[in-house]
């Protein structure tokens, strides 16, 4: 394959490094808050995640101290409930996912030969949302007002009636805030992996870790919105009394369980997949041979990504679901063992056929294999309905969950941290301290949780704060508690090793494990721009096939070794073949993500303290910050006013019709669509199942007005499509006026919807029917309004010369939102206005 821009221009490598550093380097002092670089932000995610891990770990120790002996009053029941709820919440939402996302944010660009993630400012926004959301949530512990209804917040236990204080509100608002972060990372990881791999890296040559992260990111995009919807609905119920989950008002508490587990079960695989990606990366390196069955692993990842969405009801086997439905979910739960087994056999076969070196990271991989396989087997047991009924809500489930999550996530994570530690710091960890840490953790873990299986089989329920002497559970609980402290000592030793190595670790030689993937072509620790020049890669093992590659890359002998233009640049490549399509130019450091996240934090706090006016004001302020951020794009002076490229190079992405922003919008709309489908599921679920659902005799929404609004949005979308078609043919006459016309049609749709809403005279605090309808209409109003604002901005940008035939990229992105609005509004009319008339109550 002929690579683009391959002719090396003889340059002084040191000078090139300095020039690139001037463009990509991180500022210091207060301005460090503006950093958008993926290496720095990935590390920030991981360090913050470890802090939350320590908080979650201390909470676990408190739980084990309380349960060590019968009839203890170390904690009151109220505090115990808060501690157990927060332990689960912190570990799942503030440690596991952000930690793995942080690792992915750090590694993915380096592995695929890119210089950064595709939306750097989004990485920064995601980090600050995570940080602020995490602080808000954990601060509830300090004021003894933490959530106490379990990490899954089942209604009605978490509803106003049984949880009148602010605990549930902290959970619902804090978690939703943190999920903005998860979704941001999900969107940009998908787009980065698909569109910014270095030239030649076709889909089937991609490192397996990137496949795992692609699946994880897509699962986040689809899996998180149901919980966001559930959280919004429950917070609305608690704040203003809209009865979504109250039987008397026509709601149903089981709807919460569906929405939660629609997210909650895929969540387990969202955590497991990147961890399995670490294992699939490490085993070939330490076995000294390529992985056996690359294609099988890709198939297994894909299967897991889908099947894991079909298991959620196995968490609800005891709530009274028909046997046949239970059988579907039982079978699907067993099916997921197939891709898991494929991966386990692939790993064993690779070790079998290679010459494994049992270095420190491999020790953790072996621990993972043992613990995770045990956890997987108890998972198959729990998939069987009769067994599930027997052990439901006992410590057996707690033991299974920890075998899967700690075995399936924590052990590979530590393996990965030890493996990439030399890349992070340029130093090696201590083998001795590390081995002590491993064995204490491994023995302590099994001592804690293997025994817990028996405690559960003897009937000890979950979430009880104490138990009577003579129940037969005493010795098992005591052993579990003692072992948990051994486990803590092991983890402390690992953390000590990692902390000490920064000061006392031996300097690492380049590529110390003789790895095959591109991240080891970086300097150790890496520079802000990763690579001086971007190579053409047409093999799965670039560093094994060309050990000299890191040197030639550092000498600027490959592509894009240019800094004179002052832009942050990298390749935009074809998602399938890896052929170069365009040069992606990235934004530099920015305050806007921090400002937007801070404004959203004020919204969160205002909602918590019920100062709704302030919340409304800061929603507007956050919106202004985000729009101002979006203004600095494309041909804006702060982005890329000069479209000049070297002869033979492809154009800048903002001068084409297909840049990463279009893909980011597409992936974001998938997440949005998942939210919307969850909403429609809620509407039809309550309509079908809720015993007190009241369908009004006369449907409140006017079909004529809603139809007219539909015509308006369709016409607006048509105008946008026509303008985009024109730009595709380099025609931009009347572009600005066209945008204003489309915006006017959008405003007409919003106005008509507002009229329909006003005319409907809904009573959303009286019936869940009206409450659900109101949420749907507000959703459509928001999207209609957003399309209007973005389209007006496009009109303004035409006036400033930022958009036109010379820079045609952005209107296509906005047009995608218009298409989405047409489809969702059409479905809304069908669900809320047409079907009730056709089917009746």
């Amino acid at each position, binding site marked *: 394959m002929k690579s683009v821009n391959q002719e090396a221009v003889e340059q002084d490598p040191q000078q090139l490094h300095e020039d690139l550093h001037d463009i990509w380097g991180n500022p210091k002092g207060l301005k460090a808050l503006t950093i958008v670089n993926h290496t720095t932000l990935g590390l920030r995610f991981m360090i913050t995640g470890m802090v939350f891990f320590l908080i979650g770990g201390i909470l676990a120790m408190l739980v084990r101290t309380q349960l060590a002996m019968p009839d203890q009053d170390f904690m009151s029941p109220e505090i115990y409930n808060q501690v157990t709820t927060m332990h689960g919440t912190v570990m799942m939402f503030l440690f596991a996912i952000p930690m793995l996302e942080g690792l992915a944010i750090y590694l993915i660009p380096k592995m695929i030969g890119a210089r950064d993630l595709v939306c750097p400012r989004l990485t920064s926004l995601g980090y600050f949302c995570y940080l602020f959301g995490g602080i808000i949530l954990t601060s509830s512990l300090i004021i003894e007002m933490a959530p106490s209804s379990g990490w899954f917040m089942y209604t009605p236990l978490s509803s106003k009636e049984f949880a009148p204080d602010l605990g549930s509100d902290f959970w619902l608002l804090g978690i939703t805030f943190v999920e903005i972060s998860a979704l941001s990372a999900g969107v940009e990881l998908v787009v980065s992996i698909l569109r910014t791999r270095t030239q030649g890296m*076709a*889909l*089937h040559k991609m490192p397996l870790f990137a496949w795992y992260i692609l699946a994880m990111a897509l699962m986040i995009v689809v899996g998180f919105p149901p919980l966001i919807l559930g959280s919004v609905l429950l917070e609305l119920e608690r704040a203003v009394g809209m009865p979504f989950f109250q039987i008397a008002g026509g709601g149903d508490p089981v709807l919460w369980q569906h929405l939660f587990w629609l997210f909650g079960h895929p969540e387990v695989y969202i955590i497991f997949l990147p961890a399995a990606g670490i294992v699939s990366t490490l085993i070939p390196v330490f076995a000294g041979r390529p992985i056996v069955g690359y*294609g*099988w692993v*890709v*198939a297994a990842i*894909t*299967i897991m*990504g*889908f*099947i894991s*969405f*079909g298991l959620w009801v196995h968490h609800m086997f005891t709530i009274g679901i*028909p*046997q*046949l*439905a239970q*059988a*579907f979910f039982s*079978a*699907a739960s*067993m*099916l997921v063992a*197939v891709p898991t087994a494929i991966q386990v056999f692939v790993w064993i076969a690779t070790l079998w056929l290679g010459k494994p070196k049992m270095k420190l990271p491999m020790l953790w991989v072996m621990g993972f294999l043992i613990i995770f396989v045990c956890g997987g087997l108890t998972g198959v047991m729990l998939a069987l309905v009769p067994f599930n009924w027997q052990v439901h809500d006992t410590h057996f489930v707690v033991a299974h969950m920890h075998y899967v999550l700690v075995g399936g996530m924590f052990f590979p994570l530590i393996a990965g941290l030890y493996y990439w530690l030399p890349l992070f710091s340029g130093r090696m960890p201590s083998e001795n301290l590390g081995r002590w840490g491993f064995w204490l953790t491994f023995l302590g873990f099994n001592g804690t949780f293997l025994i817990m299986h028996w405690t559960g089989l003897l009937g000890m329920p979950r979430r009880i704060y104490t138990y009577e002497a003579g129940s037969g559970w005493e010795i098992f609980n005591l052993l579990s508690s003692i072992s948990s402290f051994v486990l803590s000592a092991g983890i402390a030793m690992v953390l000590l090793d990692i902390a000490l190595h920064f000061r006392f670790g031996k300097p690492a030689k380049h590529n110390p494990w003789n790895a095959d993937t591109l991240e080891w072509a970086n300097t150790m620790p890496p520079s802000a721009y990763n690579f001086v020049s971007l190579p053409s890669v047409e093999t799965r093992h670039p560093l094994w096939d060309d050990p000299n590659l890191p040197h030639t890359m550092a000498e600027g002998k490959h592509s894009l070794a240019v800094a004179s233009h002052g832009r942050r640049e990298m390749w935009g490549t074809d998602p*399938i*073949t890896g052929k170069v399509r365009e040069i992606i130019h990235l934004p530099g450091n920015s305050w806007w993500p921090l400002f937007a996240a801070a404004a959203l934090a004020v919204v969160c706090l205002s909602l918590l303290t019920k100062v709704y006016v302030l919340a409304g004001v800061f929603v507007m302020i956050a919106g202004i910050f985000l729009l101002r951020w979006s203004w600095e794009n494309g041909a804006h002076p702060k982005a890329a006013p000069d479209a000049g490229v070297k002869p033979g190079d492809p154009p800048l992405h903002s001068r084409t019709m297909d840049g990463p922003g279009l893909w980011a919008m597409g992936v974001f709309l998938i997440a949005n669509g998942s939210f919307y489908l969850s909403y429609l599921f809620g509407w039809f679920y309550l309509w*079908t*199942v809720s015993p007190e659902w009241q369908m009004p005799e006369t449907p409140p929404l006017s079909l004529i007005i809603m139809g007219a609004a539909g015509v308006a949005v369709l016409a607006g979308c048509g105008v946008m499509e026509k303008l985009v078609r024109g730009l595709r043919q380099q025609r931009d006459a009347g572009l600005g006026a066209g945008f204003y016309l489309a915006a006017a049609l959008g405003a007409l749709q919003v106005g008509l919807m507002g009229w329909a809403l006003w005319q409907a005279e809904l009573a959303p605090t009286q019936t869940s029917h009206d409450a659900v309808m109101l949420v749907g209409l507000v959703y459509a109003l928001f999207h209609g309004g957003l399309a209007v604002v973005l389209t007006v901005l496009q009109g303004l940008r035409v006036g400033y010369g930022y958009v036109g035939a010379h820079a045609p990229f952005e209107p296509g992105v906005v047009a995608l939102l218009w298409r989405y609005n047409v489809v969702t509004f059409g479905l809304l009319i069908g669900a809320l206005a047409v079907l009730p008339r056709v089917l009746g109550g």
Partner: protein
Amino acid sequence: MERLNFTHPIHLIVGLTLWSVWFVAVYSGLSVACAVNPPSPEARSLTLLNAGLGGFTLLCAAGLVLLAWGCCRTAKQHQGRQRFHAVVSGWLYLFSAFGVAFAGLPIIGVPPCL
């Protein structure tokens, strides 16, 4: 049209998407039927609902097997990237067919709404 070719990576997700659609259809179809017009418990599994769900399941499984066979034939005609996509897609179609058949198996003997 290129996307219709079995060498296109879109087929890596089509089979399991069909599995998902089948799964949602049988679960929601069953739930709605049980809520609106549940068959008599005395009929056990010999109901129109079971027959409908079973027929739909067979149809989906057969369609997925056909798609797997198409991938298999196409894979033999290509090398490299295209062969990789066709082979992996073929296995994924086959697994999806197995998934439909396996998860649908209880339709034969379990009463729908008890």
